[in-house]
């Protein structure tokens, strides 16, 4: 049984089909990228996978359970327990320190534990910046706090929306390395990105166009490491187009 399965998902806004009959499966421990141009439906798909929106039609199975008809309250609970979210804009609470931002996720999940939050920051290499406010951190550091917050409650899936969109190359590499580390630890990663270099690092890349799944690319040479300007060195197999 797949960890996540989307069955014939539609998301319709009036005349517009933001998602049009999309089906996909993500296995436990897999690292999947979702790519596509602006308006292709990436964010809609992320919202549905992240339990922040419901499809107009179709089924979303998480651990074999259809969550597409769940109430908002239940979706919040599922999101809290099973999904760790990472955003392009980081979305850290600016009056809380790095460690408090991590503890915030614990607070709404169970009980805040500063020691555990500090360990999470240590995992992303920010133990020494724990008491700093977001405004005192660089973009890369803020994104790493965001990663620590996403993984603090041991989610089944980490869902990242353009995680490197606001980062320079050096920080992009650091964040991708973190994902690699998480993947090696068995975490399931779904990364929505428009950046081919970040997408290509994943085991599998799904390409969306006009709300439809246009391509699925499997990275045969998966290493989980980012290589700038070396796109041709990767062998890719297009399953369908």
């Amino acid at each position: 049984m797949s960890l996540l399965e989307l069955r014939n998902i539609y998301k319709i806004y009036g005349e517009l089909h933001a998602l049009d009959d999309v089906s996909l499966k993500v296995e436990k421990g897999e690292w999947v990228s979702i790519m596509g141009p602006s308006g292709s439906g990436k964010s809609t798909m992320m919202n549905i996978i992240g339990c922040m929106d419901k499809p107009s039609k179709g089924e979303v199975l998480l651990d074999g359970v259809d969550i597409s008809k769940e109430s908002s309250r239940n979706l919040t609970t599922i999101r809290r327990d099973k999904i760790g979210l990472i955003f392009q804009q980081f979305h850290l609470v600016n009056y809380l320190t790095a460690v408090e931002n991590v503890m915030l996720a614990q607070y709404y999940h169970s009980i805040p534990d500063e020691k555990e939050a500090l360990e999470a920051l240590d995992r992303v290499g920010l133990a020494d910046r724990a008491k700093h406010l977001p405004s005192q951190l660089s973009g890369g550091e803020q994104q790493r706090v965001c990663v620590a917050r996403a993984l603090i409650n041991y989610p089944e899936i980490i869902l990242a929306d353009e995680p490197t969109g606001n980062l320079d190359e050096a920080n992009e590499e650091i964040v991708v390395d973190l994902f690699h580390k998480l993947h090696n630890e068995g975490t399931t990663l779904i990364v929505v990105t428009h950046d081919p270099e970040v997408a290509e690092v994943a085991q599998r890349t799904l390409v969306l166009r006009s709300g439809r799944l246009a391509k699925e690319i499997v990275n045969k040479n998966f290493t989980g490491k980012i290589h700038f300007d070396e796109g041709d060195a990767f062998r890719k197999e297009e399953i369908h187009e």
Partner: protein
Amino acid sequence: MFGRMIRGTLLRQWKKMLMIAFTIALGASLASAMLSVMLDVEDKVNQELKTYGANITVVPKSASVLNDIYEVEGGETTGAYLREDELGKIKTIFWAFNIVDYAPFVNVKGTLEDGTDVSVVGSWFNHHMELPTGEELDAGIASLRSWWEIESGEWLDEQSNENAQIAMIGTSLAQKLGVSVGDTLHIKGSASDGDFHITGIFDAGGDEDDQIFVPLNTAQALANLDGCIDSIEVSALTTPENELAIKVAQDPSSVTVSQYELWYCTAYASSICYQIQEVITDSVASPVRQVADSEGAILEKTKLLMILITILSLIGAALGICNLVTASVMERSSEIGLMKAIGAQNGAISGLVLTEIFITAIFGGVIGFFAGFGFAQIIGQTVFNSAITLKPMVIPIVSILVVLVTLAGSIPAIRMLLRLRPAEVLHGGR
């Protein structure tokens, strides 16, 4: 964590929170000012209204029976008198402190030298009393009938002219007799006569303008009525009559013991009358309906006006809070969206926002309460010329009003917060 978030928000949004506190303070100050005045206004308005005269008259029982039969008030007595030596007892009743002023009256017939019959009224003007309770009191018509206009001369001063043959004369009678201040009138009573020096001419605008007013003992001596009085006029602070007061006044046996006790221990005109009757032998005390009713009506209208001002000020405060809290929530939409995204339920976020607002409200409410009490003092000094007493009841009422106004003002923001979808604020919805 909750505390850190509250502290963080309050510190970060201190300007906005200060504005919310200020709005609440404004509403609370008006509410507490109006409530303080409203709860104290009964006494204050009553005191003001007391300047318009007595609201209770006491007559001998037999005179009262005749009045009832012929439906007249203040009619001639029939040889029955009240006892002057019991007057001090009026200030010993349960509601003694509500007795502001009173004066006894004795009406005697006199004849002038030219044979003209005149009505001579004996009363207190500024009579000094030492009460059985140890208190001292100046009572009399000088304060009880303060609306009398002294056309010439001055009020008769009993205290500095003890046992002097002095009199005040009504303006009509003075014109008829052609007398003025400083003149002397020889008045012959049924028992004695005397020369009375006129100290003042007054215009009362009523029957009194054809009368001569002299000190009580002097009038009593003219008719050999030592220690006797015809009637007493009492000015008392009273609570407007309600159904209970009317019911007890009609038939005291129709109420329960507890209702009777409540009536007895409330300053209704009827209960004060009842208590006066208890201390003045063979007397009937009755409220002057017109005055009592006017007092009640004015009081009710004053209270209604204050309630309306309070309601309007609170509505204004609620609208102000509504705008400010909504703006605050809108400004924090991405933060709130994030909290929802990482698992916060609507209840938790509403609780957080409401806690922040209520902390601010408590701050604003406390400041507003004290400011309002200050306003109340200004109103008290300006309108009633006296301080407003803080009634403990104002504190819980203002607290409840602040809570209700804050809640009402927060409703639109909370509804917006509940409708806020994390997907829409954290990144595009499509």
